[in-house]
């Protein structure tokens, strides 16, 4: 096979190529790794109206956005979803629906197909009925499998997204078999990222290095066996990488998320960072928010970087990692992501791993994502307090974004 030297990373040339709409924080599931803010249930602004979302989509397209994600919460809880998808298709977006599958009926699938929806990403948490239903706090397993087959029957390209954590990491082989049976096109094992609800439950969710290695071996074997029939992604948890993730391809680089209340954010977790303002599309144009808002400007380029990052030969590759993680773990969003082995705070990662796997550690019940817990956490404070990030609908935290250039 010839070496392909012509593919390079594209920086988006200043365009928000990826527009993610968190249509709502409402969700029928109670996943304890949810990437929605822990205080989502506190009183706040109402969700954007249909007309407001349409304006956001139109302005996004004018700024050069190409990929559009409908997520939540559960985006199917918006009964204007089909109308929004039709509008997005007419504008020329590639439309992605990121869903738990709850509420996805044959009729809605047909309507979404007619509206021009391009692909569906369905979450699945386990190959086991009982474990799935326990983890998501609802009887969802049978429904998800049924919906998965219906999605394929309607001819949608389909991504099966599996958030990976201690409770399901041993099921990689079984989940692969399920995915093969469904005929999914892309299978994404996404080790969850520890923000918001996942941060609250980190001690109970974080797998061991050995578990991750074993899972990765299964994935490699499956890739060889399945060849081109299924693309399998395995998103490594940065806690075990030593190198930070190139989060969002850099802050304010290609990614723009709009929260249910209209707040514009460089990533779905960004409202975790205290001290930053997140103006709303209700008050500002998308062009102003993207091009001029101090929040989006804040971590662009390298002037904001700590000396550790600014002098690093990998700063163009990983942009110093994740601002949210730097804030959550060190208290300063401008610090080097502690997931980086060069970070002076890297020991915090090792300590978190050690704490989660300490011999004799008392197992705690998972704090489920629900309104009661949300109100309690909003008052009490926790790792994710003040956070108002947002969901991928299923807990992969940071959406995979691929931008190639030939």
């Amino acid at each position, binding site marked *: 096979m010839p070496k392909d030297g012509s593919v390079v990373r594209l920086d988006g040339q200043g365009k928000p190529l990826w527009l993610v709409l968190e249509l709502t924080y409402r969700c029928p599931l109670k996943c304890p790794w949810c990437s929605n803010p822990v205080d989502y249930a506190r009183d706040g602004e109402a969700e954007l109206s249909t007309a407001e979302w349409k304006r956001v989509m139109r302005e996004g397209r004018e700024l*050069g956005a*190409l990929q559009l994600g409908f997520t939540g919460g559960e985006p199917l809880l918006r009964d204007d979803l089909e109308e929004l998808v039709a509008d997005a298709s007419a504008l020329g977006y590639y439309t992605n629906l990121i869903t738990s599958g709850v509420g996805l009926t044959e009729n809605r699938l047909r309507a979404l197909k007619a509206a021009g929806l391009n692909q569906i990403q369905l979450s699945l948490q386990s190959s086991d009925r009982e474990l799935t239903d326990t983890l998501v706090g609802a009887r969802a397993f049978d429904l998800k499998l049924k919906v998965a087959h219906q999605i394929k029957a309607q001819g949608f390209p389909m991504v099966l997204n599996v958030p990976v954590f201690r409770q399901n990491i041993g099921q990689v082989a079984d989940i692969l078999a399920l995915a093969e049976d469904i005929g999914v*096109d892309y299978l994404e094992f996404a080790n969850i990222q520890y923000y918001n609800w996942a941060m609250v439950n980190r001690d109970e969710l974080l797998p061991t290095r050995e578990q991750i290695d074993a899972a990765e071996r299964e994935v490699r074997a499956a890739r060889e066996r399945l060849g081109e029939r299924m693309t399998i992604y395995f998103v490594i948890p940065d806690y075990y990488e030593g190198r930070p993730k190139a989060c969002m391809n850099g802050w304010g680089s290609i990614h723009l998320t709009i929260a249910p209340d209209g707040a514009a954010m460089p990533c779905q977790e960004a409202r975790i960072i205290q001290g930053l303002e997140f103006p709303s599309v209700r008050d500002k144009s998308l062009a102003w928010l993207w091009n001029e808002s101090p929040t989006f400007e804040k971590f662009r380029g390298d002037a904001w970087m700590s000396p550790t990052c600014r002098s690093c030969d990998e700063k163009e590759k990983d942009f110093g990692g994740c601002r949210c993680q730097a804030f959550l773990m060190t208290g300063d969003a401008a610090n080097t992501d502690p997931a980086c082995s060069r970070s002076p705070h890297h020991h915090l990662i090792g300590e978190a791993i050690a704490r989660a796997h300490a011999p004799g550690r008392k197992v705690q019940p998972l704090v489920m994502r629900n309104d009661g817990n949300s109100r309690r956490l909003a008052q009490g404070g926790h790792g994710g307090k003040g956070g108002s990030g947002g969901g991928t609908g299923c807990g992969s935290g940071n959406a995979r*974004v691929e931008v*190639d250039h030939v």
Partner: protein
Amino acid sequence: MTDITAPSPPAAGERYVLNPMYLFRWEPTQDAHVLLYPEGIVKLNQTAGDIIARCDGRRTVADLVGELQQRYPGDDERVAEGVYKFLEVFRAKGWIRRQA
């Protein structure tokens, strides 16, 4: 290491089609052809766009080479080599498939 399952390189009589998972179209904001797929974007340079636009299941690789040689006159051998190399790379990436 030899991979015995590796597909053979493109041949003159074969036909290629776009993988239906991908959307191929002109994107004015990029002034380029793009491939769109779940959560991904590929921006194509002019030659890559020219080639993928012709992977329609009707044209053979030989037809494709002929058309590209007309479009880029001068060095026929280089154009032919480029087309074969691009096809092999695109197929390996899963963007196009050999027509059965």
